[in-house]
């Protein structure tokens, strides 16, 4: 039971990461119609920026500020130089161009930081555990990630649903031409939304630094999970991204933790291990297929729009 609780929290923590990535990706895909495969590169940019800032300043707080700032600037440049030209193009062009960006960013990272992974230590103040339930110590740093992620999710929800910037973003997802005819510079709005999504991805990268190694290609694995999240949630929906991220995070973590044990109850240990490993890595795709059969447009498709 305690183990389950701990794994559940780990699942939530993965979910929070996925949400930070998915929020930007779903806004960019839902509003501008661009499939940005290089979203993972922005996550990587955040991780490298925080590693560098930590090495130079020794301050973890500064590192966590540097991560979204750097990713936001990289994102802004990416939008102005490349993405802006892709809005009117078809999805294949977008996939090819943003795949090219992945190669570009990986090479830039290799030239600047070398191919060896960088390791960030969890700051000593946060490197302890706290007992949430008696007998179940949980790392403070992971708990902080959960809290930070939930805070960002709450802020984002208020921003999108209550603020004027949020209403412009929602208006832009239905009728950009009308928005421009009312005096809104839609090009600039898109660039800012893109940079904002990049900042969220960069923040996730900064948070991930001490848990994973900061290395080239770290964005690609999590990008696939992120796409699963936004498809499950309904493309363009922040609420959907949140629900999808938690579902995927928990399903993936619990699957890996408990499937081997469950299967061993029924099968010989050797076979159970093999099958469980396969099933665990398939779990989120099975989840996605099931949800799409039930709700083809995802859990929370944005209202007022036909089709995708």
């Amino acid at each position, binding site marked *: 039971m305690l183990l389950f609780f701990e794994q559940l929290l780990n699942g939530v923590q993965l979910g929070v990461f996925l949400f930070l990535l998915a929020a930007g990706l779903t806004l960019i895909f839902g509003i501008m119609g661009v499939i940005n495969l290089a979203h993972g590169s922005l996550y990587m940019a955040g991780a490298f920026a925080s590693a560098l800032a930590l090495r130079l300043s020794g301050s973890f707080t500064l590192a966590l500020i540097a991560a979204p700032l750097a990713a936001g600037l990289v994102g802004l440049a990416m939008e102005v130089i490349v993405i802006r030209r892709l809005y009117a193009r078809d999805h294949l062009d977008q996939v090819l161009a943003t795949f090219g960006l992945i190669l570009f960013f990986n090479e830039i990272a290799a030239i600047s930081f070398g191919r060896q992974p960088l390791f960030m230590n969890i700051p000593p103040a946060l490197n302890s555990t706290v007992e949430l339930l008696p007998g179940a110590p949980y790392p403070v740093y992971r708990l902080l990630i959960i809290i930070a992620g939930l805070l960002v999710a709450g802020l984002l929800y208020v921003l999108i649903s209550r603020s*004027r910037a949020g209403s412009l973003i929602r*208006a832009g997802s239905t009728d950009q031409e009308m928005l421009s005819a009312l005096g809104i510079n839609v090009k600039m709005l898109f660039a800012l939304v893109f940079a904002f999504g990049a900042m969220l991805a960069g923040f996730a990268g900064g948070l991930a630094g001490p848990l994973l190694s900061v290395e080239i290609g770290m964005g690609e694995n999590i990008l696939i999970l992120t796409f699963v999240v936004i498809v499950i949630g309904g493309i363009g929906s922040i609420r959907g991204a949140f629900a999808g991220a938690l579902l995927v995070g928990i399903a993936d973590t619990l699957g890996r933790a408990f499937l081997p044990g469950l299967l061993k109850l029924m099968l010989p240990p050797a076979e159970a291990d093999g099958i469980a490993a396969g099933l665990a890595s398939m779990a989120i795709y099975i989840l996605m297929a099931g949800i799409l059969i039930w709700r083809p447009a995802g859990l929370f498709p944005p209202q*007022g729009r036909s089709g995708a």
Partner: protein
Amino acid sequence: MLQVEHIETFYGQSQALFGVSFSVEMGEAVTLMGRNGMGKTTTLRSVMGLTPAAAGHIRFAGRELTAAAPHAIARAGIGYVPEGRRIFPTLSVLENLTATAAPGRAGGGTGWTLQRVFDMFPKLKERQRQMGALLSGGEQQMLAIGRALMTNPRLLILDEATEGLAPLVRREIWNCLEALKNDGLSILVVDKNIDALARLADRHLIMDKGRIVWSGTSEALEADPELGRRLLGV
């Protein structure tokens, strides 16, 4: 105030406007009439920069707007109420009014506030929390006008101001436009209701096959019933 000179506009290869010229003066209401497909909507879209003219000039308040982006044209002081209203469906009535509002722009007359829009259209106040998609046609048209007014334009452009609305709602829209005109706002309006247009506007333009083929005052328009049969199909 608005000068349109010899604009030619294309959709791909096919030409829709053939040297359209007209002007709207300060405080004036001008109508654009003609049968369907004669270029009225295209003319308005060209003025707004949504379907840019390939040749000719568009000037507004002394500024050259020929190649300007739509948002720059709107910011120069033109409020646009498009055909089909195009209310933002996922925004509430309140958000539709405030999202693109520009209180500082105050082009002509007094600045528009939420309160003034609600005074003009009390129904919008009652429904301010509802989503734009849930409004009736008449309410959507009121909202589209209110939304444009909140950008504090000097010229209001309306495409099919009362199309598809019930007679009572039409009268309400015409009364509102009359009040706006008396307030000093310039208006360029496309509609089919000749009687109401003749009462509202000073000058009328009739389009046929991408050209302006007749222009004149309300008296001239009403004095020539043949005109309506030949060019307006009424």
